């Protein structure tokens, strides 16, 4: 009897390996090998010179050094600013909307309609969206036309020629594309909160605001943190929108050039050495963020309840 059982589990284990093989094989070939190759290239001087190629010549860390003395810190800052411009409104609006949508007392007409509408931009091709904004917000475009005709402004606003204007357009697009998604996620999280907590609070006479800040927010903290970090990783990859909006120039004054736009420039120009060093930078930053996500996903005590119980127990014993 025992022998039979042992035999069965051993033979089925092989199937486990087989089933996961395609995934790992594909990842090894298309991600791990390229990673090693990218890291290797970062130490070589290797670029296209018109129709000729220079390199590969070993140069050690010189690619990294020249990267740091280039405008790389500026581009990192740009990426961060444009991410914040989109993320802060996104999370605030999503929280507000989610709490409204999940409030049983609040009658909102056309809830389904609104849900469908706010999620729509998430599916739109970011590059086409940016192309659209480029056409609409240009100096002689429809938006300026409307504002001029309504008398709101005296002369055309040159949106894409000012740093604030261009960055705000990018932030606006990011906001529109993601706030719907975040709202839906937060709604699900709020609906997962035990309703008896709310009932108890109401009996104690809590106002809406108090309920929101003292109960809702802390309860969904894990999801908020998760959203923050995944949004940060997404922000790191910001490319389509500023690339198409500014035609790859990162104008004005290189204030909308993001890290990936910079990487793209080098890859298109076949400048493998610098692209490699830049990729390694990005990989390190991404790896750190990945680690945070990993910790959160495998955290056995996501909302602190277990450690609170532990402390209570300790306190009781003492």
């Amino acid at each position, binding site marked *: 009897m025992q022998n039979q059982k042992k035999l069965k589990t051993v033979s089925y284990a092989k199937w486990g390996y087989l089933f996961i093989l395609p995934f790992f094989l594909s990842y090894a070939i298309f991600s791990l090998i390229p990673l090693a190759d990218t890291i290797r290239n970062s130490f070589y001087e290797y670029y296209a010179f018109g129709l000729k190629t220079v390199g590969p010549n070993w140069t050690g860390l010189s690619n990294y050094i020249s990267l740091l003395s280039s405008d790389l810190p500026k581009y990192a800052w740009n990426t961060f600013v444009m991410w914040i411009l989109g993320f802060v409104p996104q999370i605030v609006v999503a929280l507000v909307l989610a709490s409204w949508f999940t409030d049983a007392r609040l009658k909102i007409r056309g809830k389904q309609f609104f849900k469908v509408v706010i999620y729509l931009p998430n599916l739109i091709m970011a590059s086409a969206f940016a192309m659209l904004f480029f056409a609409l917000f240009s100096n002689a475009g429809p938006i300026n036309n409307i504002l001029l005709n309504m008398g709101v402004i005296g002369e055309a606003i040159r949106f894409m*020629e000012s740093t604030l204007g261009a960055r705000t357009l990018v932030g606006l697009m990011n906001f529109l594309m993601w706030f719907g998604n975040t709202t839906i996620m937060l709604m699900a999280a709020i609906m997962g909160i035990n309703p008896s907590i709310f009932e108890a609070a109401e009996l104690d006479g809590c106002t809406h605001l108090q309920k929101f800040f003292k109960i809702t927010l802390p309860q969904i903290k894990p999801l908020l943190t998760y959203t923050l970090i995944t949004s940060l990783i997404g922000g790191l990859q910001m490319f389509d929108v500023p690339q198409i909006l500014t035609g790859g120039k990162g104008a004005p*004054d290189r204030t909308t050039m993001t890290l990936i736009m910079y990487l793209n420039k080098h890859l298109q120009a076949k400048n493998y050495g610098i692209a490699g060093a830049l990729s390694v930078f990005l990989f390190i930053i991404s790896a750190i963020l990945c680690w945070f996500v990993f910790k959160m996903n495998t955290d056995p005590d996501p909302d602190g309840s277990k450690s609170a119980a532990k402390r209570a127990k300790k306190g009781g014993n003492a």
Partner: protein
Amino acid sequence: MKRRIWYAALMAAMILGLLSGCGSSPGGSDVVPGVEGKILNIYVWNDEFQGKFNANYPEIDHLSNDKSVTFLKDGTEIHWVINPTQDGVYQQKLDEALLKQDRVSADERVDMYLVEADYALKYIDPEANVAMPISQLGITDADIANQYRYTLDAMRTADGEIRGLSYQATPGMLVYRRSIAKAVLGTDDPETVAAAVSDWDKFYETAERMKDAGYYMYSGRADTYRVYSNNVSSPWVKNDKTVVVDPNMMRWVERSLEDTRSGINHNVPGQWIDEWNKDMGPDSKVFCFFLPAWGLDVCIKPNVTDTAAAQDWASCPSPQSFFWGGTWLVAAQGSDNPEHVKDIMLKMTADRDILRSLAVNNGEMSNDQPLMEELAQSPDFGIELLGGQNYLGVLSEVAANIDLSNISSYDQGCVEEFQNTFGDYFNGKISLEKAKANFEMSITERYPWLVGGGVEWP
């Protein structure tokens, strides 16, 4: 069960094999000497040459529905491969194709491509060997005897070979709105207007009058750029390492800042953009544009067809002579269609009838000096756009004086980056020092091997 897995794996492998066949087929060895290929690939950045070719080349049978293929009478198919030129994309795609030239099948090879003065040198470099000398094609000096010397000198390399032929001469002139001239100067007569802009001082006097009357003299800083950049004394880059900014370029910077601030120009941030197009349209308040002959057909005409401004233009000499670009036809090394390419090049750049037709129908200044001089004298020659004016009279003198000795392979990049970075300065967003620093940064991003070479400012 195991068998099923093996079958599945085999099927997958087969399908993968089939799908990967959808990529480029291995080739290189299917070029038969002496026999012309069926497909002729021409790389261009817009449909200008294609249009002129389709309208004039005698051997055309018909066009495909979407106009991307021109079918010749002998069965040859001309495939037009269009990649826009902004940001160096056209060059990049062309480079990729040329580098694959000996690895792809005969039908996929680049047979002919167009280049502009801004980057021609890169392609006609004998070391790069991607352009066929016209002598190799069998074109003789007698064939091209009527062409403007400068178009040939620009394409002649140190080994004495010419590697490109042009169908146009591109001296520049001022093209102005008749109605605005009448409103402000009292007349639209080209002689009088010419006197009002005969040099920079007069030009700016007239500009003040325009401004007082509520008009803009010209569209934006990019419009005057070439007038300054054509009159520099050294190329952009020396020794393939150091960028040299000519004092004339800084004069353009100062002048543009002044003009933008005082409202003399309409502060349009570039050319070929929607705003610039609108400034040529019927509702525009912009007085004049700095354009070569081809600009009439390519830039102005699309914006005024069927509008009140359709014949509201005239031309006169520019305050300082300049030229704008020029397109050369280059035969790609490794092409499997040299006979056809030779015929196309000869017909489109040296056939008098075709060149005459281009001038008459497209407002072109064709690359046939005696013909242009003849037409300049002819009272019947003029185009509708200019209300019947004969613009060749204005241009022939300038054409004789064009000097391309300071072009370099870096011109496109330098022109674009210089205008972009200083654009923010004109808008008052950054200081002059910042603009200079930005230019240094972006030019080394565009051409990475210039890192460390530095930029010399006057």
